[in-house]
């Protein structure tokens, strides 16, 4: 009985920790602090930054980045694509699947595709 109960608790806990977050929530949690409530690069943290965060609503610059490059920079941080150290790697907080969803979220913010 006790074993079954423990198993159920462990199972419930593991399912809970693996639950996927929505891209909108992940954006709110991790991206808005620098990229801003509107996604236009004017987050609450930017005052003293030497490099301003990317404007995710700028179709021109965002269409110059492939989905693969966006995935890489979210996962591994700015320096992985020769950009700022101020953009940190988020792989410790996000799963690959969540990062893929975030890339698509960015595409809705810029209303653009790579090369368009």
């Amino acid at each position, binding site marked *: 009985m006790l074993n079954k109960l423990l198993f159920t608790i462990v199972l419930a*806990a593991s399912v*809970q*920790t693996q*639950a996927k*977050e929505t891209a909108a*929530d*992940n954006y*709110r*949690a*991790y991206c*808005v*602090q*620098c990229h*801003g*409530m*509107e996604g236009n690069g*004017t*987050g*609450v*943290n*930017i*005052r*003293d*930054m030497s490099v301003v965060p990317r404007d995710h609503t700028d179709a021109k610059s965002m269409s110059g980045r492939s989905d693969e490059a966006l995935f890489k920079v979210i996962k591994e*941080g700015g320096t992985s694509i020769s950009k*700022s*150290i*101020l*953009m*940190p*790697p*988020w*792989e*410790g*907080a996000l799963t690959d699947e969540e990062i893929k969803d975030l890339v698509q979220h960015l595409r809705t913010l810029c209303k653009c595709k790579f090369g368009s």
Partner: protein
Amino acid sequence: MQKIILAILLGLSGTAFSAEETFPKDCAACHNISGPAAQTLKEAFGKKGPDLFYAGNKYRQEWLAAWLQKPKRIRPAGMYYGNHIKPGAKSDEIDASTLAEHVALPKADATAIAAWLMKLKPHDDLIAKEKIEPGTITKQMGEMNFDKFQGCMACHLIEPEYGGVSGPELYTAARRLQPEYMASYIRNPQAWEPKSWMPNKQVSDGGIQKLVRYLELLGKDSENAK
């Protein structure tokens, strides 16, 4: 086994009206005092104050007792910054009208609560993995490492008017926090809070030592500046 449980219950009943029994319900209105940490962003967005269920692994007792008597905001944009910002002229701004102050407590209560909180230590395992090596760092080198090499200033203040505001201010960190906790949290924030919005920057052992030394230096400076 039953005898042990009985003994525990008797032991607890003997401490009626102790801090353990009277404070938790007050603190629990805004703090998670029993764990586990938030497992979803929805939970994390709703946090009103920092988790306290591992307070004994995190804080310096003397700082806790003093702060509870004279609380001062540590996170400029509140617990989840997203609940306390608004669009501004040049960038998003902190909406101070949404921030609540922490209640100030009489000395006796503050001292008792600090002592009680220090008993909450579920993460001794994480703390035991850290060892702070003796060493020094100059303020200039520490700041360069913090700002330019690690990029921590994006989210943290290293002085009252320099740095980001979505994370807790860090010029007081070493006065508030145990050095091993600072090291462990830098090493892996998600080990403490799965939904922390601090990134794991894969900082090396040496890099962690440098950051902790710098925070210790900042703490002394801010103490002297008081």
